[in-house]
């Protein structure tokens, strides 16, 4: 049973991602947080996530209210325990320099956030298959 952490400031998107992931692979446990600091706390078992499981992979929005993906990635990758953690960065804008920054900070993949359910499902499932299985 895989745990997935989805980091996005939009509750609507978190809801959609949860539904897609849970339907794609029944039994998947989807955890959602809305900020970069919360994501770090989740990964490092800080309060209030002391009992949080280690996720199989992370879906990370590029533009979070408190930080952008590269800053968060730098802090996560600084910990050797998370060196191999698959992290998929989704970006609303898809600026080439954002992609470069995210990938060089340690993102496993950078994808422009799809706006259709089928496309998003394909992206998530493909990423899962390639990186987390």
């Amino acid at each position, binding site marked *: 049973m895989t745990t997935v952490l989805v980091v996005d400031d939009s509750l*609507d*998107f978190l809801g*959609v991602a949860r539904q897609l992931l849970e339907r794609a692979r029944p039994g998947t446990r989807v955890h959602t947080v809305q900020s970069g600091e919360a994501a770090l706390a989740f990964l490092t078992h800080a309060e209030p996530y002391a009992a949080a499981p280690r996720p199989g992979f992370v879906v990370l929005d590029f533009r979070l209210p408190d930080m952008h993906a590269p800053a968060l990635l730098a802090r996560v990758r600084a910990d050797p325990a998370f060196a191999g953690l698959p992290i998929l960065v989704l970006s*609303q804008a898809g600026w080439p320099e954002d992609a470069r920054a995210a990938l060089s900070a340690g993102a496993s993949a950078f994808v422009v956030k799809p706006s259709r359910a089928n496309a998003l499902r394909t992206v998530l499932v493909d990423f899962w298959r390639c990186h987390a299985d």
Partner: protein
Amino acid sequence: MSQPDLETSIQTTNARRATLLSVSGLATYFVCLWLSRPYLGFPMRPTAQLFAVMIAVNLVLAVTAPRWGTVRFAGAAYGTLHAVLITFVLHVLGGLGAGFLLFVHMFPIFHAAMLGSTGQVFFTANASGLCFALLAIAEVSGMLPARGTLVWTVTPAQAAAAAGIAWAGFNFFALYASSYGEGMRRSARELQDEVAARTTALRAANAELERKAHALEAAQDELRTLLYAVTHDIKSPVNSILLVADLLCERPEVRREPLVHAELERIIRLAGGTEDMIRDLFEFFQLMATREAPDWFELGPVVAETVETIRPQLDARGVVIEVDPLPRVWGERRKIGRVVTNLLTNAMQHAAAGRGRVVVAGVCDAQQVRFSVRDNGEGIAPRYHAGIFELFGRVPREEHEQDERDGSGVGLAVVRRIVEAHQGQVWVESDVGLGSTFHVALPIPPRRSDEDAGGLAA
């Protein structure tokens, strides 16, 4: 140029001009004396020595003009020096008896006017008068015996009268000369003031222009940031609407209700249209924000790439694209690529349904490269020709009644912006019912290497 600089330069120029005029005047004077030798019999040897010395002195003064031209009483000193020397010449040539040569005293006065104020001009005139009077006194009293061949006997009364007339004449000429010199200096000063005033005005205008350019740049940056934020913040919720509606559509209970399903499809279509529009706008901002170095490149491969990209849609709509040989163009490759993509997409959307035909062709001459995209669609009425290149400008729906042909209204606006940024032009020719042809003309940059020119002509 600051005020003292201009005055110094005028003064120096005048000093040099005065000495050179003296040199030419003295030379002419001497030639005249030499030519008149058989008739008037002036003593040539001492005259020649004297003139040689005067010409040499004037040449030295011409060379050193920057050193003494701006000295305070240069005009009076220079004029008086000449007056004394000329009086001596007069004495050598025949004294008061050669008084008709008095006219040469005008020149020192004129030189003084070139160099100095009215006061200095009158000073020179009176120095000339004094010199002549002293010569008269010296000759009449016998101190300086009259020399030369033209010796007329002059009585003291005649000498006094001659001296008086000469003195008055010199002053009279000083009046003319000084008013001329003053006028010259005044117009120089006025010119200088005018230049200074215009320079100040120009500087102020430049500063204002620079300030406005900065303000404009700041406003543009602000606008770009705002548009970026707006498109980003609108894109997010529209994305969510689409995703949520998609998921809802997939639910079995919704699938069982055809009416609900159809309405959901409508929501998805509307949100999708909005999303397309935002995406196009977004891509447009991205494209405009990035800048690459312009260069020559082949248009053919760019068109071929685009055709491959839209191949599935072309096949789905049954549109055939025919590409004629295309020239090389000068510009930013990605942006011109966007122009090609948008024009081809537009042509594809409007080509006749089921039997669509799009032709891409190009020509070039010495000034510009032109390419065109022709479709066999319904055409565009002339009254819409300008509007379709505006942002969100579209031919109203009742004109062709087919919803799915509507673009986002961004594509052609992007085309126009990019082409105009390349100093080019874009326009449409259309026969209603027969199709439209979009033309793009891009200028050839004026400076290019021979190799480029050869490549282009080939």
